[in-house]
């Protein structure tokens, strides 16, 4: 109870601090809009709505799997979204793309069924080719996602990696950023077992009302900036932990009849609550003020909690390591910027080398941005399990380490 009251007090104190509020809420919102405007992608609604996307299918496969995929494109579920047509050969289909008649050509190679079912050795020639229209980035990604989800549905994760994204990359027909995004989603869905149809629904009505480029930049910058400044907030929380010692209020708490565990628990809970409040307000503000669509509300809520927990862990760790409140601020600021770069808050890191992506996983930013983008593309909570688990795992490790350090530090001893 007293721990909750301490946390509530910290929440009140922080929300009275105008400078802190400006940095916690004002700065990320301004930067989100600013960066989106600089990217020139926010106001121009030049892109078409996601409806009746023209797509051409070439089925060279004689077997059952190829036929199913071809049929999937004209299923009821995708009726509003896609406007499929068929072509006899690959060359004709590619010509339609080159002429900007369709957003993509899906070419199912001969012998695809055999390759998939293992009836014959599969090679490069057996990959489904998505020949994407570079002028219709998002739309062609949707088509890619449909193909992937189909491949998932037949539970052949092995094949999904073979979707010829690399080919398109090499041909310069889709940009590297997208390729990585596609790859990321494939990897995620490979983990998740419940994928029947979910991936197809990702391109459903909620996305389709939005001009595609609005989602593109705001959907990236809004969570990126929110998480960047989340790191500021948790550092501030860590700073306040040490500052309470200097101002004597911690001493007063210790001489009151409260256990030290409750005091520390209350302080840590306070940091977590402030972090959660900040993220929630920012996401809500972006949604209400700028119409950014974040997707599944439950997924967003859980992701926010996971992010707040992981970031709080970092804030507390800094407090445990630093000796003075000033040091917490300095280290916190450095951490915020480093994580911003490493975790992709400034520039997407999808096209970075593998080692970079691995290192980025120590940042809440990388996990969080990935999670928000996945949600934005229509993923729901179950598919986010890995991301959420990763963040909570990070939080758990950081909490244990920092609480151990803090206890050793004898913070509560005058």
């Amino acid at each position, binding site marked *: 109870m*007293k721990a909750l009251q301490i946390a509530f*007090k910290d929440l*009140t*104190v922080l929300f*009275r*601090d105008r400078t802190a509020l400006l940095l916690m809420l004002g700065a990320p919102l301004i930067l989100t809009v600013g960066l989106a405007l600089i990217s020139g992608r926010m106001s121009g609604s030049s892109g078409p709505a996601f409806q009746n996307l023209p797509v051409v299918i070439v089925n060279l496969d004689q077997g059952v799997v190829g036929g199913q995929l071809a049929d999937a494109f004209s299923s009821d579920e995708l009726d509003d979204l896609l406007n499929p047509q068929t072509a006899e050969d690959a060359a004709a289909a590619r010509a339609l793309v080159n002429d900007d008649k369709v957003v993509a050509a899906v070419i199912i190679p001969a012998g695809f069924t055999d390759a998939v079912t293992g009836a014959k050795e599969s090679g490069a020639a057996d990959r489904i080719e998505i020949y994407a229209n570079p002028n219709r980035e998002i739309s062609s990604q949707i088509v890619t996602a449909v193909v992937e989800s189909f491949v998932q549905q037949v539970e052949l994760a092995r094949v999904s990696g073979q979707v010829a994204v690399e080919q398109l990359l090499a041909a310069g027909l889709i940009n590297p950023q997208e390729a990585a995004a596609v790859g990321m989603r494939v990897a995620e869905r490979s983990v998740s077992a419940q994928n029947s149809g979910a991936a197809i629904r990702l391109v459903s009505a909620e996305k389709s009302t939005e001009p595609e480029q609005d989602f593109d930049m705001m959907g990236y910058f809004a969570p990126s900036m929110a998480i960047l400044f989340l790191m500021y907030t948790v550092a501030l929380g860590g700073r306040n932990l040490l500052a309470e010692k200097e101002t004597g209020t911690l*001493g*007063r708490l*210790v001489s009151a*009849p409260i256990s030290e565990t409750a005091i520390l628990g209350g302080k840590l809970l306070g940091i977590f609550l402030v972090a959660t409040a900040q993220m929630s307000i920012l996401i809500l503000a972006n949604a209400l003020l700028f119409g950014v669509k974040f997707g599944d509300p439950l997924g967003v809520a859980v992701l926010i909690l996971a992010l707040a927990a992981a970031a709080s862990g970092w804030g507390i760790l800094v407090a445990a390591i630093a000796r003075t409140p000033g040091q917490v601020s300095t280290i916190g600021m450095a951490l915020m910027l480093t994580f911003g770069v490493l975790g992709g808050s400034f520039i997407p890191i999808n096209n970075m080398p593998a080692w970079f992506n691995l290192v980025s996983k120590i940042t809440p930013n990388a996990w969080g941005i990935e999670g928000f983008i996945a949600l934005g593309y229509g993923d729901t909570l179950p598919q986010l399990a890995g991301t959420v688990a990763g963040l909570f795992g990070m939080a758990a490790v950081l909490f244990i380490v920092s609480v151990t350090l803090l206890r050793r530090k004898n913070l509560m001893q005058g």
Partner: protein
Amino acid sequence: MALILEVQDLVKQYPGAAEPAVNGVSFGIRRGEVFSLLGPNGAGKTTTIGMLSCLLKPTGGDAIVDGHSVRTDPEAVKRLIGIVPQDIALYPSLSARENLRFWGWMYGLGGKDLARRIDAILETVGLTDRGNDRVDSYSGGMKRRINIAAGLLHEPKLVFLDEPTVGIDPQSRRNILEMVKALNAQGMTVLYTTHYMEEAQELSQRIGIIDNGKLIALGTLDELTRLVGRQDEIELKIASEHAGPELAEALGKVKGVRSARSEDHTVRLVADDANASLPEVIGVANARGIKVIGIDVREPNLEAVFLHLTGRALRD
């Protein structure tokens, strides 16, 4: 049990410090009294209070509050005591009421009872009409008063006031001193630290003098001043500047006068009893035709006691 607090040979050695900050301090506080711990800066007052309020672990010794040891039973001690730290320990961006409510919570208070206590204590410290203002909009004296109020909300049996009047205006100081007296009259036992001897003299039944981590004297004001020997100081102001040395020499021979020296227009005497010696002193001056234009008599005070015991002045 007559003693509410029994301090037994307390020692505090800060890591890295050459000397212990508190070095074997023992004293007892009787139920219902105001006990002052008087000492200069760095004497070890705050360190002592820190150990008594379970904030610092003693290096040696113990203190028993109403039967509970600060070493082995700090939880029980914490429930009995109230503490008013030397440095203002409040949240500046919260209002006085919010601060008091928070500290009330921390002592397990809540609801209507807490609200009533907050109203009452704001009344006591004279800040009812400013209760909803943020503490950072307060003057130093007002902050001090809320700092005290926060330590009293739960109506502790024993309260530690650590230099509660440092650096404030005379009016706030008066308010605080009167408040301490009123609380004591209601039955609260007070341990009051200060380096102002007038405060110790005015407030307390008994006084401990602390210096360099050691309690160098303890007793009532009378007992302490007797340490110096009953010697009064008489200061004569004379009209003529040149008559000083001559007068001093003559007055030195007066019965009961221990010493006399002159300085410009003043002659200072130390006498066993000022009242007994004064008539003859005036007589000597009159006989020599030296006009006395002012007489000041000072009885021994704690300042003199401190000077006597340490050879140093007790200063701000």
